[in-house]
């Protein structure tokens, strides 16, 4: 897959960062506003996919990228599971217990574990959607070879 013209590349470079930041915003405000880990993660993956589409697959080392995103995906799930298990070990000894202080509702740092869960769900969704995209691209390139 070849890259696109200079105009597209430059515009994508400008936009991708903003899209990425917006994804982070959605994830971090998951417990306050609509959206959350899943929606934000999809936006994060979108910014990566924009870059790959604009610059073409020979620019990026796709196989290496795919390995990295798979590892992030697995680590995010494990971290999520560990957070859930902390509830079993500490606090009320209940799986998924929200034993951190809840703070004042409406503030960014509040609601105990929910922002943390959202962050890891965000990483997980971003990494897995990117992995699926990369797997399809790599598969097509291997067929064309």
């Amino acid at each position: 897959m070849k890259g696109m013209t200079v105009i597209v590349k430059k515009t994508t470079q400008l936009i991708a960062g903003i899209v990425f930041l917006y994804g982070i915003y959605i994830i971090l405000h998951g417990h306050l506003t609509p959206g959350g880990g899943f929606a934000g993660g999809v936006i994060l993956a979108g910014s990566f996919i924009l870059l790959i589409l604009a610059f073409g697959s020979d620019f990026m080392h796709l196989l290496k990228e795919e390995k990295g995103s798979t590892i992030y995906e697995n680590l995010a799930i494990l971290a999520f599971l560990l957070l859930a298990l902390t509830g079993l070990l500490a606090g009320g000894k209940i799986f998924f217990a929200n034993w951190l202080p809840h703070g004042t509702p409406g503030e960014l740092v509040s609601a105990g574990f929910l922002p943390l869960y959202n962050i890891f769900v965000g990483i997980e969704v971003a990494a897995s959607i990117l992995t699926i995209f990369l797997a399809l691209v790599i598969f097509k390139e291997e067929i064309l070879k």
Partner: protein
Amino acid sequence: MMNPLIPLLVAIPLAGAFLTMILGRFITGIPRYMALATLLVLTFISFWLLVEGGTASSVYTLGGWEPVDGVPIGIYLIHDGFSALVLCIISVIGLLSVTYSISYMARYTSENYFYSLFCLMIAGMNGVVLSGDIFNIFVFLEISAISSYALVAFGVEKNELEATLKYQVLGAVASFMVLFAIGFIYWSAKTLNIADIRTAFSEGGYGINYILIQILLLTGFGLKAAIIPFHAWLPDAHSSAPSPISAMLSGVLIKAVGIYVIIRLFFNMFEITEGMAILITTLGALSMAVGVLLAIGQWDLKRLLAYHSISQMGYVIMSAGIGMILMARGLRSEIAALAITGGIFHMLNHAAFKGLLFLNAGAIEYAAGTRDLRQMGGLAKSMPFTSSTSLVASLSISGIPPFNGFFSKLIIIVAAVMGRFYFLAALAAVVSIITLASFMKFQRYAFYNKEQGKIGKEIREVPVPMLLSMITLAAICLLLSLLVLPGIRETVLAPATEILMDQAKYSSQITGM
């Protein structure tokens, strides 16, 4: 105090799956031991819960969300007599399949993907069995179904891909039906918790959707359980998968995500109506009879076994249906209890002997390189352990005493006669005889033919891990017949029957009313 082991049954295989993926990238050879360790822990936990739980059932609320005014909020995990048994067969067959895979899967590449998907499938099935609300049943159903699609296609040859495509299309239809039914339930009952749905339905606030919901759920989970009109995917998928996966699919998956959920929902969620009970009994009897007739003409060994799975699951569905009819008529509850006990017992037995038969088929394929019965012959001499364990399994599935299949079929037939379903009792006996005939064909062509087959190479017995799991399963086939003894039956099978018969108890333990 809630039992902290219950959520671990889902958390451990999930953690095992993803740890396998990460560690398997850096250390070769570790995935198999990770999976083995995961399944060992699961087996220990599930038996501990079975022994410790006894007749009591325990409810686990994730995150500690207690019911508000008797309305359950949050996610509930429920461990009772029935789910305890299914959890045990999931872990035991899973453990033995992993042991078997250590040698069998050495011929395939991508070992870490295999064991990771295997653990994911286990996590999904444990989740389905434990979950107390219908939407989480759907979520875990999808986890186990999607990993099993990938596992069926693991050989990536033409046959496997065709089988998995068929399986995926029909599986997607089934999931759609289930989701559609869940939507209808949420619309009319305003809740997703099984116990709460029951309360809402029994107050009469459901209207015309009730029958539609039942039919949709029966179709959706019937597709997963491969009851006869919905069986088309099963023979392909179960025969194309690698053999340990066939053993898991046939031995456990169709029970955990199909039969278990059907029985659980129709006994504990819906009011039992006679019409629905007759429909379920008819479907069960139909798949019992048609499955065996389709099986007897097969020459592909694994296809033959797959068709027998349909037929044997028919026994389970039919006996549960007989129990439902008797309960709907409100008479002779002890016979209904007998029929349900027979069904559950047969489900356990089928997991043992069908798992063993698929492992045997895998061993023959491993040693001789063929699944065609006509090309085998005289294997009894060169493969004594495979031959003798498969004889045990064949006698079990055909219902020959003293093996386990005899006792469960006997209970089912006795219950059918006592409930005055003479035709169904006779049908069950005839099907059992045809099963015997078709397994005599298997034994004769594979093992006891005098002429050597057309394999044309020297055949040796399979490696030790494979033998170990086959011999263990053969021993389990014998040991399970002990469940029929009065003292043991009351402690193991009776709690399961009790939770299904006592409809009010299931919901009262959750809502706390």
